[in-house]
Each structure stands twice: as structure tokens, then as C-alpha cells.
């Protein structure tokens, strides 16, 4: 736990070194948010008040939340580890007196948390100040369950990051599959468009996959499209995926370490 907090602090400090890059990121997310909201509004204007259980106002909030949590998605494994695999520093990493999986999980978590601490409040603040129809509105009643689910979503995302990092044992260049999988994952998570907009069967299947547990689950609770029972079962599913992905991550890492060979020197 102490190791984790010091990692978050380091990641956050790193993050704050590049303040203008961070602000540029926030600006980009705001513009993309505006584009999506205006497009969705026009789609709803085609004679729909609700789509897949989601009203327009809720879709607007969903877009803002998914823009604000954009950097929470597992876009890649831990970049440092990728470099370590190439230059052999991985040997030091394996020699540390910490459990490898726990260490990488904590580092993944720090990597996903730090940008959130800076970007999310800024995006949400700006989204609350938008003109009518583009503004974020949240129901206070759902904040507690929603925040809990968001925290679980970050843990699931960190577990996914740890698995991606584990694959570096096999592929030392971060190209290819490591580039494509996160794209597909973010699509299935609801990052490209809310899962509520998918046809019923597809929507159900997507929500069962682990990706939805990262983003769609907390977001649909936060914007209030579920009742308490559904919310609790969604959180239960998140817990299941967290356990399953953690177990899978441990297996991947163990197999990776076993086949890993460091050239001496």
C-alpha cells in the first residue's frame, strides 16, 4: 500500500511537470466532447426521447464523463517495462524484493490514477459551465455507488494494463497487437459511443465483456440509467472481472518470467 501511494505521487509529479501538455489534453477532450454531444443531440432529434434506456441529458453527461476519464483506459502496458525488456534492465525489476505482479499492478494503477486526478476535475468543471443543452448534470443520489463503481473500473483497467505489460515478455515492440487491442477494448468499453446506443443483443453481450466493467459500468450508474438492483449487479460483475483478470495477469506474468532470458553483461 505504501509502495502504491509513493508510485501515485511520483506519477502525479511526473504528470504535473508537463502542465501545458495536460491542458492541451483537456482542451482536446472538451472539443471532442462538444462534437459528440451535438451529433448525438441531432440523432435524438430524429424523434427519440430515450435510446437503450438513456435519455438525451444522460447521454450528454455520459459523453463528458467518458471524455474526463479518457486517460483511464488501458491504452498500453507500462512503457518503462517495454524499454526494460529491450535493454535488459528487466533483470533489476525481477530482483526487487516485491511480488512482481503486485508491483506492476500498483504501477499500472498509479499510471491510470494520476492523469485522472488532474484531467477529470478540469473536464467536469468546464462541462458544468457549458451552455444549456451541452452541460453536464449529475444526480447526487448516484454519486456514492457511482464513485465506488468508478474506483472498481480503475482497478479493472489497471489489471488489464498489467496483462498488456506481461505480453511485453513475448513482443518487445509495442506495435501490432498491443496497439490494436486497446482500440477494440475502448470501443467495447463505451469510449467511442455509449453502449446504450447498440442494438439490444449486442449491448447485452458487450456489457458482459470485461471492457464494459472499466467504463460503461460506472458511467451508466453515475448518469442514473439504472435502478439500485441493476447497479448492484453491475458492481458484482466488476468484482468478478477484477478477480478473473488479476488471476489471468498472474498466470501471464509467471509464464513470462519463466521463459524470460536475460543476456548477461
Amino acid at each position, binding site marked *: 500500500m505504501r509502495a502504491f501511494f509513493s508510485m501515485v505521487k511520483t506519477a502525479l509529479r511526473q504528470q504535473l511537470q508537463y502542465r501545458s501538455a495536460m491542458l492541451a489534453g483537456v*482542451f482536446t477532450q472538451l472539443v471532442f466532447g462538444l462534437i459528440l454531444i451535438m451529433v448525438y443531440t441531432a440523432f435524438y432529434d430524429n424523434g427519440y426521447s430515450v435510446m437503450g434506456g438513456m435519455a438525451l441529458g444522460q447521454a450528454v453527461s455520459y459523453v463528458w464523463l467518458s471524455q474526463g476519464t479518457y486517460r483511464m483506459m488501458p491504452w498500453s502496458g507500462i512503457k518503462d517495462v517495454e524499454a526494460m525488456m529491450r535493454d535488459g534492465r528487466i533483470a533489476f525489476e525481477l530482483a526487487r524484493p516485491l511480488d512482481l505482479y503486485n508491483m506492476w499492478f500498483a504501477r499500472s494503477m498509479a499510471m491510470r490514477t494520476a492523469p485522472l486526478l488532474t484531467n477529470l476535475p478540469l473536464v467536469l468543471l468546464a462541462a458544468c459551465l457549458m451552455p444549456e443543452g451541452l452541460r453536464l448534470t449529475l444526480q447526487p443520489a448516484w454519486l456514492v455507488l457511482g464513485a465506488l463503481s468508478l474506483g472498481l473500473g480503475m482497478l479493472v483497467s489497471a489489471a488489464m494494463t498489467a496483462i498488456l505489460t506481461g505480453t511485453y515478455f513475448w513482443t518487445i515492440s509495442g506495435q501490432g497487437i498491443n496497439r490494436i487491442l486497446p482500440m477494440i477494448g475502448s470501443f467495447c468499453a463505451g469510449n467511442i459511443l455509449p453502449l446504450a446506443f447498440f442494438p439490444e443483443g449486442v449491448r447485452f453481450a458487450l456489457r458482459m465483456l470485461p471492457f464494459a466493467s472499466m467504463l460503461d459500468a460506472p458511467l451508466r450508474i453515475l448518469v442514473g440509467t439504472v435502478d439500485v438492483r441493476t447497479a448492484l449487479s453491475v458492481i458484482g460483475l466488476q468484482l468478478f472481472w477484477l478477480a478473473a483478470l488479476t488471476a489471468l495477469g498472474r498466470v501471464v506474468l509467471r509464464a513470462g518470467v519463466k521463459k524470460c532470458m536475460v543476456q548477461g553483461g
Partner: protein
Amino acid sequence: MESIKTYFLLALADLRSQMQHKASFVLGAVGNFCATIIDFLGIWTLFASFGALDGWTLAQIAVLYGVINLSFSIAEAVGRGFDLFAGMVKSGDFDRVLLRLRGTLFQVLSSRLELTRLGRFAQGAGVLILGIAAQPQGMSAGQLGLLLLCILGGVALFLGLLMMQAALCFWTVESLEAFNVLTYGGVTMAGYPLSVYRSWFRRFFLYVVPLGCLNYLPAAVLFGKDLPYPAFTAYLAPVAGGLFLLLGALVWQLGVRHYRSAGA
């Protein structure tokens, strides 16, 4: 004429070096294809659920989307040197560029031809062809010619944008990502009809960065939409693109004059 020959000489040399890592190139192109086709998958899903968008059908949107994505993919492939330019300034390599006899714009342009962008090109072309094929009245040769002009204008406009982004490096190498709002954000924005946006937003993309001239205005005229603008605006794409490219080149020259080497 001779510069064109030199350009191909340099670009082909760069290509040969990229082709030394064939697997990496193929994966890059496939990754680019997957990453961009996902956007259209999203649009397709929206149409499957909502039916239409502001009176536009999916086939009509496919034309909008295809034109803007083709334009951007070509500009990205050709103008990748501008994208990588921040590194050139940071490392001091730009000093060497200044010593050579060719113009700086020409050298940066020919420093890289990024063929992995074939991925976006392929998906844009595929969507455009499907969109054209799905038009109930078909399209005449003249109309197809107009679309081709729009794509060329689009390439010029995006190249101008990339030049401006790179020229910013002469003042700062930080927060260049903000420019992505105009390139990547612009491509996303222009994938939908401009009429769905609020008027301030619309005006920005018609009068400041005229992305709307590239595909929305011509497509609206082609598909017989009500437009508050005269019909000749459908033919403005090459003009807008050309002017923007010129503007980009001017900003670039201004930047070069401002450049002070760190003396590396």
C-alpha cells in the same frame, strides 16, 4: 520539375528504409486501418439505432466521411515530416537543413513518406466507394469529378494545417497536441453534416478553418439539401485548400526567419 524528381528520389529512399522492417510496416498499416474503421463502425451503429441524422442517410454520410478521411490520410502520409518536425528542432538537425541548398519546406516534406497511413486511406476509400455505390440515383462522372476535386482541396488544407503546427515549433515545442483538435478533431467533426452543430461552431469551420467547404457544402448540393449558402460554394474546396496551403507556407517562412539555433 527537377524538384519533383528529387522528391521522389528522397521519398523512395525513405520508403526503402521503412521496408527493411516489413512486419512492422504491415502491422502499422493494419493497426491504422483497425483504429480508423472503428470510427465508422460507431457511425454505422448510430444509424442502425436512430435511422437518420438531420435528414441525411448513412450512404450520404459515408460520402462525407470518405472524402474527409481520404484527404487526411494522404496529407498525413505526405506531410508526416511536419509531424516529426518537433524532434528535428529539439535535436538540432534543423541546422543541417538550413545549410543545404534546397528550400526548408521541400526538405522537411521529403524527409518522410509514411505509408502506414495506407490503413486510413484504405478504410476511407472503402467507405467512400460503398457510399457512392449505395446512392439510389447513382452519381454522374461530373459529380465524381467534383468529389475528386474536394479530396485534392482537402489534402492541401490538411497539409497547410500540418505546416502551421510544425511552424509552431519555431516558438515552442510544447502543447503542440492542441493542434490535434483541428486535424483529428476536424476529421471527426467533418464526418457529420455541419448543420448538426451550433452556429458558432459551424462558423468556425466555415470561415476560420474551412473544413466545411471540403465535404459538407459540395455533398449538401449534390444531395439536394436546403442550404443557406449559394450553390457555387460547392466548388470552393480547391480554392479553400489552396489558400490554406499558401497560408501554411507563409507561417512556415515566418517561423524559419524567427529560428535561432541552440548551437548544438
